[in-house]
């Protein structure tokens, strides 16, 4: 087990380095975009005087490196700072600011996790079941239809799938609402109903990958001697696959499931905008629009951290699910 621990520590250290690089890239990228917070928040009212006054208040007149180091310093002491919008608001009020980036992000992140959770609950069983069935009935009509359907849904852009679902399930057959404006204090049943369309959209997007991986890894194993042995014992094909092939195929399946979960957290931006779902993706889009760097940075770090952690989890799970990796010689 010591081996696993070393891997975890190594990967975490690498993860921190990755986060650092991500933060530099994002910081530079946002600064390369034309216009800064002061100009964009003032819009047509951006006179030289008012732009400079906001820049001075927010420290935007400092050189880029200095601004980055200040942000990094805060970050290292666990302080993600406050959004430019909030700081600007505080100077308008002549008072101290109390709302931090974390206060803004956490409820949104909660909503996004909820959406990802609902999607995972729907998508993972469907994908694995479809994958097992496709392996079982490989090269039949069923296999082909399942493959074509999932591949077409993954190949279409998300917003297109979203609009198709809205058309079919909200406009023509009003089963689900097209607006997913969930809020605090909503009953769980209402919340689920409102979340259903974005969750189904994401399900369509992530199912294909997981399903095909399940199918492929099971088919891979079907040529193994021990499967042949099981078959010769007279087991039913279903039992062969579920009892004998599936456990050995778990590692790659878990891997791809974890990857897709990471995608659910980081890739929901477009879907959230289409359905007006108040998650972190929408906050991210809003913040990029006004070049609110502290919020953009924090969102990106969360996205990157989600990827790194879920990847790490995937690797560890595949080690734990494989005795040969668990007990190396």
């Amino acid at each position, binding site marked *: 087990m010591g081996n696993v621990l070393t891997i975890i520590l190594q990967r975490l250290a690498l993860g921190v380095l990755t986060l650092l690089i991500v933060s530099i890239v994002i910081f530079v990228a946002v600064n390369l*975009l*034309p*216009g800064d917070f002061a*100009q*964009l*928040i*003032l*819009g*047509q*009212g*951006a*006179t030289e*005087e*008012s*732009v400079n*006054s*906001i820049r001075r208040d927010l420290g935007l007149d400092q050189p880029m490196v200095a601004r980055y180091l200040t942000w990094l310093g805060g970050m290292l002491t666990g302080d993600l700072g406050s*959004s430019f*919008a*909030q700081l*600007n*608001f505080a*100077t*308008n*009020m002549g*008072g101290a600011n109390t709302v931090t980036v974390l206060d*803004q992000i956490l409820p949104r992140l909660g909503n996004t996790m909820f959406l990802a959770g609902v999607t995972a609950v729907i998508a993972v069983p469907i994908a694995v079941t479809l994958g097992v069935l496709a392996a079982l009935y490989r090269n039949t009509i069923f296999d082909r239809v399942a493959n074509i359907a999932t591949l077409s849904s993954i190949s279409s852009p998300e917003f297109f799938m979203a*609009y198709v679902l*809205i058309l079919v399930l*909200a*406009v023509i057959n*009003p089963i689900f*609402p*097209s*607006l997913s*404006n969930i*809020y*605090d204090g909503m009953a769980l049943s209402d919340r689920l109903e409102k979340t259903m369309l974005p969750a189904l959209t994401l399900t369509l997007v992530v199912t294909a990958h997981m399903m095909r991986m399940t199918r492929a890894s099971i088919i891979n194993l079907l040529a193994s001697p021990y499967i042949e042995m099981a078959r010769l014992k007279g087991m039913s094909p279903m039992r062969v696959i579920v009892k004998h092939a599936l456990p050995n195929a778990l590692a790659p399946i878990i891997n791809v499931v974890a990857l897709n979960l990471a995608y659910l957290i980081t890739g929901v931006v477009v879907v959230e*905008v*289409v*359905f*007006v779902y*108040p998650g972190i993706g*929408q*906050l991210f889009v*809003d*913040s990029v629009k*006004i070049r*609110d760097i502290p919020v953009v940075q924090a969102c990106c770090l969360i996205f990157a951290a989600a990827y790194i952690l879920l990847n790490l989890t995937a690797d560890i799970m595949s080690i734990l699910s494989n005795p040969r990796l668990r007990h190396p010689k």
Partner: protein
Amino acid sequence: MLHGISRRSLLKTGAAAGVLGLTGMPLLAQTRGGKLTAGLNGANTSDSWDSRTHSDLFMIASASGSVFDSLTEVAADGSLKGELAESWETDDAITWVFNLRQGVTFHNGKSFGPEDVLESLQMHLGEDSKSAAKPIVENIAKMEKTGDYQVTMTLSAANADFPYLMSDYHILMFPAGQIEEAIQNGIGTGLYSVVSFDPGVRFVGKRVDDHYKGDTAGFFDEIEYIAINDNTARMNALMTGQVDAINRIDFKTEGLLNANPQVRIQEVTGNQHYTFAMLTDNAPLNDVNVRRALKYGINRQEMVDKILQGHGAVANDTPIGPANQYYNAEMEQLAYDPDKAAFYLKEAGLDSLNIDISASDAAFEGAVDAAQLYQASAGAAGINLNVIQEPADGYWSNVWLKKSFSAVYWSGRATEDWMFSSAYETGVPWNDSQWDDKDSARFQELLVTARGELDTDARRSQYYEMQQILRDDGGVIVPMFANYVQAVNNRIATPDTVGNLWQMDNGRMAERWSEV
């Protein structure tokens, strides 16, 4: 008794305004009850109840339209009526006495009085103030409490429109001594108190039980405004009945709306105008003949038909629109005339003209297409416009006021003076045509005279003349007024006259609309 009251006499002594406010409403069969759910754009995660920062519909409809009140209010027909001020009077347009409404309470129980007015106005001052209403409030040299329910303001320069300016959506009344708290939680005197507010996401308000506006306004028990910045999502929400009303219809999908029997489109022409501004200090635009050539080289009707798809009206190179009091509708309309354009070009001593025109869809939707249409129509007169498509980001900082010929969007103003002094007075920051004394000393002189003029007829002729000067010599080409186009579900009743100063009945649908 209300007969024969002209707008002017209402302005001069708004004594009857209170009465109008109570009895002058058309008696619609509007009844209390139900809920209004609206999907609105223009929302941001940086939104707050600080009215100094408001600039877009979502917060205007939530704050000025529901939770807060101003001293005065522009009614749907464009007339001015009292909101928290019952009446006002002046003799010289310099000293203004406002008599405040009695028995008004804020949502936290505090009663409304002169101190609240003074402190709320004070919010906009100060060296660091970024309030958009600073220029308005700065003109008040002295303000004091002159009675238990009276405030007297002395201006540094005469302004006959002062009561109009007090209806600005930035200038809302906050409770004195608790302004910070009121901004945190949204505590005003409006018809609806805040139930919940999630910036950039959602606002829910509940009708105040015992409100001074009584039964004449605020018919819904509850209102919910949902932030939907995405055009398609807003449309879907209306089509599937999840919201009762939406603002800013995408013209491309208008046919879908028309096909839906549950909803109707509501359209008003106001002062919102799209322009091409010329910097008149730069050659060759400093030559009035070049400007005239450019004015005759644009096909205004084509712009309305193709850019606005019919949802607008042609304009006459002045920013004064149908929602203004002294809109000069009789003035002869400038028409597309390549011969005249070529003639003026010759007057300027030129055979042809090559000039860059900067546009981006940040200026207004379709601005680049509009510039290209302009290019095509001006070509016939020997004017070669070179359309430069500028990046949308930073357009207002890097292009507008900097490039000598650029596309611009203006929402217009409630009064002539407000509009002129925002963008046509010598030296003001938003003067996007560098329009000043050297271009027309007469215009600048009239601007100051008309501002302090209390006589309606004199003022009308002054403003008419100013519009004419702008049409003939001005540095801004105003080809079109763009309508406010919004859509409403048929379960909601709307009055016959809907405000045209701003979208969604001037943002006051919570106050004026009701369930059928």
